[in-house]
């Protein structure tokens, strides 16, 4: 579904990503691990269109993505979350979700001539929003401005937004960071639930325990390169990976 082929990207003299290739098949949960500075987020930015690449190829369902702006990539059905939770601060939680509705018609004419329709949402969209809010425990915050949300709620908003877009693939950047244990369990359940409904995931995280629990396949990165790939059991027992994660692998487990 998503194929990343031999991507290179450097910033000045620093080679952030050096020839990374990976493959995400439909309906799978693929993980990407690595220490700080391994190039995971750079790779994410390249794939989602926020950064250009110096060389390489990214294809999504056979179409070339590299060089396309983020809004075109998003329209193809790829949505990502951000490491630091963000949102549209002076818009309500519900509005934050509605912006992400697929097939939003943002042309001017219907806004003027079909005001009653344009200024409201369909029962269908409202139902979807209700379900998404419920799923991520945000129902009570529906009409609250996002700037008034607490950190955990903001984190949930990241996932709610991505789900609202009904994408074909979700790129989650450190979904477990800053999430407490109880919430993490429900997050894992939600990811599995979405996967069972046909969603595909590419997940970056530091938390090895979390990654091993949910992923079908893992790529490990270090210094801009993939050093190991395979099933979770294989990757966490790999010598190169253990070397990179020394000290932290034990405590995370």
């Amino acid at each position: 579904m998503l194929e990343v082929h031999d991507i290179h990207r450097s910033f000045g003299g620093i080679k952030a990503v050096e020839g990374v290739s990976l493959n995400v098949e439909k309906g799978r949960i693929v993980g990407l691990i690595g220490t700080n500075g391994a190039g995971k987020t750079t790779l994410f930015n390249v794939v989602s269109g926020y950064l250009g690449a110096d060389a390489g190829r990214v294809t999504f369902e056979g179409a070339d993505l590299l060089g396309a702006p983020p809004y075109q990539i998003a329209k193809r059905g790829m949505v990502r979350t951000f490491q630091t939770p963000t949102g549209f601060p002076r818009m309500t939680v519900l509005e934050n979700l509605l912006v992400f509705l697929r097939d939003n018609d943002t042309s001017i004419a219907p806004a003027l001539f079909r005001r009653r329709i344009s200024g409201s949402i369909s029962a269908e969209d409202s139902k979807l929003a209700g379900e998404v809010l419920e799923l991520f425990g945000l129902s009570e915050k529906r009409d609250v401005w996002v700037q008034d949300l607490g950190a955990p709620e903001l984190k949930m908003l990241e996932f709610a937004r991505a789900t609202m877009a009904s994408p074909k693939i979700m790129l989650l950047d450190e979904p477990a960071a800053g999430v407490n244990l109880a919430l993490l369990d429900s997050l894992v359940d939600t990811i599995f639930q979405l996967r069972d409904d046909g969603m595909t995931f590419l997940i970056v995280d530091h938390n090895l325990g979390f990654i091993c629990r949910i992923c079908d396949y893992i790529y490990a990165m270090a210094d801009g390169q993939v050093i190991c790939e395979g099933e979770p059991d294989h990757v966490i027992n790999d010598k190169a990976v253990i070397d990179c994660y020394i000290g932290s692998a034990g405590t995370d487990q």
Partner: protein
Amino acid sequence: MESLLLFFIGILSIGAIYAILCLALNLEAGVDGLWDLGIVSFFGIGAYTYVLLTAPPAAHHQAYILGLGLPIWIGVIAAGIMGGFVALLIGTSSLRLKREYFLITTLAFGEVIRQVYSNELWLTNGVAGIFSLAPPFRTTLEPGAQQVAMFALLVCAVAIVLWLVQALTISPFGRALKALRENEPLAMMAGINPFSHHIRVFVVAGVLSGVAGSFYVWYNTLILPHQFVADVTFFVWTAIIIGGIGNNRGAMIGGFLFIILHEALRFLPLSSNMAETVSSLRTAIVGLVLILVLRWRPEGLLSEKRARIVVRGS
């Protein structure tokens, strides 16, 4: 008494014209986040378009093009179209710039356009301006009734513009604009193309400001390059900050309030010498109100509201 009433109606008429400018600016700067310091460009273009189409041909001591003597309603529509067209030209070249650079560019365009009015004699009759332009109802009504009728027209225009701007604000288009204002990188993730949204809202604001320009000619019955200095832009910005940026009703009230504050000193009975001194205090009064508002109501008199979203069919 009647003359005082007419005087007050005159002030409210100019207030209505400013209210339209405020609603236009609020759409692009309050709902979307465009820091446009060139709203006067479209206002002036609209005014000159209106004059060149509706005025009689230039007399022997004047020089300006066209002077077709067309009906005023054609002039008003053309003013809107030209305002939008110039917005499209300016926007295409400047909207790819980030905030501060966009701000400087739009300010510069406003100044360049004013220089054109002043210096291209063949086009606009230059600084001498064009005088004795007929307001609506000149031939059909008494001067007093004429002023009241024009005010009624302007109130209708404000109502229509408020309706239009509000309709856009609550639509998915308006939501996309707010998303761009709040967080452009994230908005792109929602499939929103920043440029295509910014340029459309910029053109809508240009059309509305252009129409307001034609009304300004009704009010003044003359046109001079000096009427379109950058002050107008700053007045409109001040008005929407006082009224409540992001809130359409607030912006509209801000427009009226600004003009009332600005003209308030005219009510003082003063000798002509004193009047000149005191009139230079007008800006100071507005400035004082602006400071007070920012101190105690930093979001303006009416702040932006949390959107209540209605579900269709319920």
